[in-house]
Structures are given as structure tokens and as C-alpha cells.
């Protein structure tokens, strides 16, 4: 992997020129249109359109200003920040215990995974040893959340490409997953169940049975979703060869998670830099290869990787349920947690990519500095380079395939 340093920065609507030309067949269309209009008396004007913040397929309050030539996007600039809730500032103002619930609100579709990372970071700062059972419960909850998040993303991607039915079908299964988490945490979306030094509640045998039933149900339904989307000819036409992110560009932009693996980069933090107890489980990391359809790095493969990862998440959750040891679920902690001076950088694999926490402790009960790296924040940036020359419909397909959560982009 090598990088061309960005040589010049011509500003098109405040956008920096792409390091790699977009490999979209619509680009040829754009070029053809441009060539044809050259030297002709007919001058067409470009249309500047505000996509969002109240657009149906920007997945939240993202605002993208796009310049279109007919249907072809010639330039775009995402504007974020509508959902900024000062998680980092709050982290500096509140004790560690009290800050934890705010983490849930970043990636609100994967709250458990956010908590998992934050707790690991604080535990490493303070030197807390988590009981064995709690570690397994964390993995089970995190993987159930990952399954729920991935099938949500798959369904919503159907919505973006114009198929409404898969969305409701995936929601039916996701609802079961949320019920599971609801039973253990008392909340449907934001849980605050993983606590510093352990977890809040233990798993009951009934819960474990229900969890098995949920995993079986999802596994059974996955082929059904695929008949609606992945194997569908129209869906393939909409997503194959669209929004191709070459591996070098993906790495350069800091794209992580399924989007990175869809570009063919074989990296999963759970396997390659394990946190918690992820090194004890057997699972595969699905990497995009061109044997399926389309080319590696396109929208289709991002969806495909998500589908494959759901299978693997089910596999991990089953192993964790099988190996669940008896014992304590919460380490003994002082009333006020005062980690010693130091800092920590922890990255965890969220459903959307690598979430990282950089924490600086100064010996008091509040962190001196907390910095969160939201995966969607980095993933969305690549859009400016890839989407140029695409059609509006492709832009929607690209945005949906990156599966951004604005709560995490803006934090």
C-alpha cells in the first residue's frame, strides 16, 4: 500500500481533490456529458442541492451539499455537527461512573459496544480486573448488539435502494434482540449495562435460552434477507461497481470496520489486536473477494461483509454462551474511582468500525481529557472522494453502504 501525497488542493465547493479517481461507471457518463457540452452553444447550469438534514436517506441529520449536473453529482461537501452533544466535554466535567451512560448515546445503534470500549479504557487506566463471568457476559451482549446492528443496517440499506420490505423483516428480528437486551438492561436502545469492573445484571437461564432462540431465528432468516437483497438482480445492479473504495484510499481515510474489510483489507480488531476475551473464540473475518459479484470495495461488498459478519457474530455469541463460567459479575470498586495519572488508548471493533478512546487521567475522579474516535466520523469522510461523478441514486447507495450513525459522527 502506498500513498500519493495530495499534491494540489483545488477547491471545488470546498472539497479537496480526490487522491484516487473514483472508479464509478457513472463517471464515464459524466465525462461523456462534459465532452459533449464542450464547444456547444447550449450552456447548462449546475444545480446546488441541499441533501439533508431532513432527507430520508441521510441516516440522521447529516447535511450534504451536492452540486449536480442533471443527475450526476459533480461535487459534494458533507456538513456535520447537527447532533453534537459534547461527549468529550462532558467526560471532562463528570466522574468516570457518571460519564459512562453518555457513551451509549454516541452510536445509539450499538450502545453496548460503546460501553464495552469505554469500560475497558477506564479499567486499564485504573487497573481493574474484571471477573471472568462478566467478561463473557460482555461478549455475549456485544455480539447480540452487533447482530441487531448489522441486520438493522442491512434492512435500512434495502430502504435506501428502494426496497421497503426487507427493512421491516429485519426489524422483526432486531426487535427480538432489543427485547433480549431490554430484559437485562431495562432499556431498549440505551442500556448502560456494562459497568466499570463488570456488568450490571447477571444472565438468567431463561435469558440464555431466549438468546439461543434469537440467534437461531436470525440465522434462519439471513438467507431470507438475501433473497430479497443480496441475490436480487436489481439490488446487484444498484450496488455492484458503485462507490468503489480502493484499499489504499480506505486506509488513508482511516475507514474501518465492514467498510475496510469490504475494500479487501484483512483486519479485524477482535482477531488481530484482541481486547477483552476475544482471543478465546473461533471465528472467521469475512473479507471481500471478487468471486461474489461486482468488484472489491463496492457497495455490494460492504453489504455482503455485513451479512457474513452477522453469521460470525452469532458464532461468537454461541461460543460465549457455551463457555459461560459461573462466578462474580462485578469487581469491587471504591466509591470514587480515582485512576492514577496516566493515559490509555483503547480501540474496539464496533459494528461500524473501530471505536477508540484516548483518555488522560490526572489522578482525580474526573478525566483530564477524553477523546473518542467514532468510526463513522472517519468513514463518512471518504465519501467526498468517492462520490464524485456518481448519480444521485449512487450517492444514496454509497451513503447507505457506509452505514453511518450521525450520533457518532457528531458525538
Amino acid at each position, binding site marked *: *500500500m502506498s500513498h500519493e501525497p*495530495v499534491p494540489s488542493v483545488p477547491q471545488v465547493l*470546498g472539497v479537496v481533490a480526490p487522491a484516487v479517481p473514483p472508479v464509478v461507471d457513472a463517471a464515464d457518463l459524466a465525462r461523456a456529458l462534459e465532452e459533449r457540452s464542450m464547444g456547444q452553444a447550449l450552456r447548462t447550469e449546475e444545480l446546488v442541492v441541499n441533501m439533508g438534514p431532513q432527507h430520508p436517506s441521510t441516516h440522521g441529520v447529516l447535511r450534504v451539499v451536492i452540486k449536480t449536473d442533471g443527475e450526476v453529482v459533480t461535487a459534494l461537501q458533507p456538513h456535520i455537527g447537527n447532533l453534537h452533544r459534547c461527549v468529550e466535554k462532558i467526560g471532562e466535567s463528570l466522574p468516570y461512573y457518571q460519564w459512562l451512560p453518555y457513551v451509549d448515546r454516541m452510536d445509539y445503534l450499538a450502545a453496548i459496544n460503546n460501553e464495552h470500549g469505554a469500560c475497558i479504557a477506564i479499567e486499564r487506566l485504573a487497573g481493574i480486573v474484571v471477573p471472568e463471568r462478566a467478561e463473557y457476559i460482555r461478549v455475549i451482549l456485544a455480539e447480540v448488539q452487533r447482530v441487531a446492528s448489522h441486520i438493522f443496517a442491512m434492512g435500512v440499506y434495502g430502504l435506501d435502494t428502494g426496497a421497503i420490505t426487507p427493512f421491516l423483516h429485519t426489524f422483526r428480528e432486531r426487535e427480538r434482540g432489543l427485547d433480549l437486551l431490554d430484559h437485562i438492561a431495562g432499556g431498549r436502545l440505551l442500556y448502560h449495562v456494562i459497568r466499570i469492573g463488570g456488568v450490571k445484571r447477571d444472565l438468567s437461564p431463561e435469558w440464555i435460552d431466549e438468546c439461543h432462540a434469537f440467534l437461531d431465528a436470525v440465522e434462519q432468516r439471513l438467507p431470507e434477507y438475501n433473497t430479497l437483497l443480496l441475490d436480487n438482480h436489481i439490488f446487484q445492479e444498484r450496488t455492484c461497481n458503485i462507490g468503489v473504495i480502493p484499499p489504499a484510499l480506505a486506509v488513508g481515510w482511516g475507514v474501518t470496520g465492514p467498510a475496510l474489510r469490504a475494500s479487501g483489507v484483512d483486519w479485524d480488531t477482535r482477531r488481530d489486536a484482541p481486547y477483552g*476475551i476475544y482471543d478465546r473464540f473461533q471465528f472467521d473475518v469475512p473479507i471481500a473477494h471478487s468471486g461474489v459479484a461486482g468488484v472489491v470495495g463496492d457497495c455490494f461488498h460492504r453489504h455482503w461483509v455485513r451479512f457474513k459478519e452477522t453469521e460470525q457474530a452469532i458464532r461468537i455469541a454461541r461460543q460465549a454462551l457455551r463457555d459461560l*463460567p459461573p462466578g462474580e459479575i462485578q469487581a469491587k470498586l471504591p466509591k470514587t474511582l480515582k485512576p492514577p495519572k*496516566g493515559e490509555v488508548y483503547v480501540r474496539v471493533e464496533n459494528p461500524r468500525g473501530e471505536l477508540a478512546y484516548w483518555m488522560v487521567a490526572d489522578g482525580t475522579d474526573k478525566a483530564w481529557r477524553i477523546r473518542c474516535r467514532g468510526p463513522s466520523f472517519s468513514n463518512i469522510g471518504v465519501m467526498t472522494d468517492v462520490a464524485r461523478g456518481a448519480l444521485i441514486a449512487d450517492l444514496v447507495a454509497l451513503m447507505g453502504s457506509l452505514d453511518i450513525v450521525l450520533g457518532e459522527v457528531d458525538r
Partner: protein
Amino acid sequence: MSDAAAPANSPTPAGAPAADAGPRDPVTAHAARLVQAKVPGAVVEVVETGRHPFLRITAEHLVAACLVLRDDPELALDCCHLVSAVDWLGKTPADGPGSIEVVYHLVSYAKKTSAAYRRSAVKNDGFVVLRVRVPRDKPEVPSVMGVWVGADWHEREMWDLMGVKFTDRPLLRRILLPEDWPGHPLRKDWAYPVEYHGIPIIPPEGR
């Protein structure tokens, strides 16, 4: 902190406290030697051991050092994972007005996805951490956007929230906060405004 010890069969005692005087980090050591050799005067301080080894680089040599680190075949740091900054106001009295530190977490996917790494028994994050210390009253750091394109938005965020001025780059403007927001909120001396466009602002401790 905790009495509960990890069971003996656990291959990794999860969350176990790591000693600060840990083993020497070979990657950071290599990076330090490399930068010292190729960009003289760039490295101010090297910490090769402990939980968080790092290189402290001078601001004016930052881009040159980054290019060396990125293009070195041994390191191949192709991704700037995170650009962050911390305001040390009141923590480093020797600095006078205090300092702001910009921290770069760099990682190599080329190395981390290699077959050699797959085979290795030790799996780690393998970050190379660069730190650049600049005075609080003139926090200017050259941009590394030309080295890693992904640093773009991170730098904008650090300008927005911390007020670090990244030079030699286009479009250094606020990314999360409104354009007319007063000040940079993550500065330790930032005071809550009384109101914003007629909206009263109540700080967490009340008014």
C-alpha cells in the same frame, strides 16, 4: 483495586494492570532512530518503554518526520488513526502560559495485515504515537493532511474544539460547532457563554 484475581486458565488476564516500566517497544524505538537519522533535530524526547511509548516531535519538523515514518518500508505507517489534542493548562507550570499537546496515533495496516503479523504470537495495537507540544497562546502545528488524507476532519475537529491552528491546509474551519460559536470549548479556560442567539446556556454546575 480489585481483590478478584483472574483465573489461572485465562490466557489474557483481561484488563490486567500493565506496569508502567514495561518492556521496550521495538516499533517506537525503530521509529525514533529513523526520524533521528533522517530528520535531524525533529525528535525532542523518546519514551520507548511503558504502556504508552511515544516520540515527541518539534512542530516545524512534523511533516518531514511523518513522511519518513509513512514511507519507511519497515514501519509503513499508512493510517493516521486519530489526531487528538490536550490542554495542559495548570498541569505544567514550567511552561509559563501552559501548553497544548497534539497527539497523533499512527498505525500500519500494511504491516498489521501481513502474514508475519498473523503468525506472531503477540498481538498488539502497534501504534506509533507522535506528540507535538505547542504553546497555548500560539498553538500552530503544520497539517499532516498531505501525508494522511484522513487527518483532514480530525484536524478540523481539533481546531473547532481545542483551537489548534493547523497551518498549510485549506478549509480550516469549524466542523461540529456553529461557525459563530465563541471560543474553543475543550480549552481548560473556556468559559460558558451566557447565551447563544438568545438561547440561555446553563453550564453543568449551574449559574
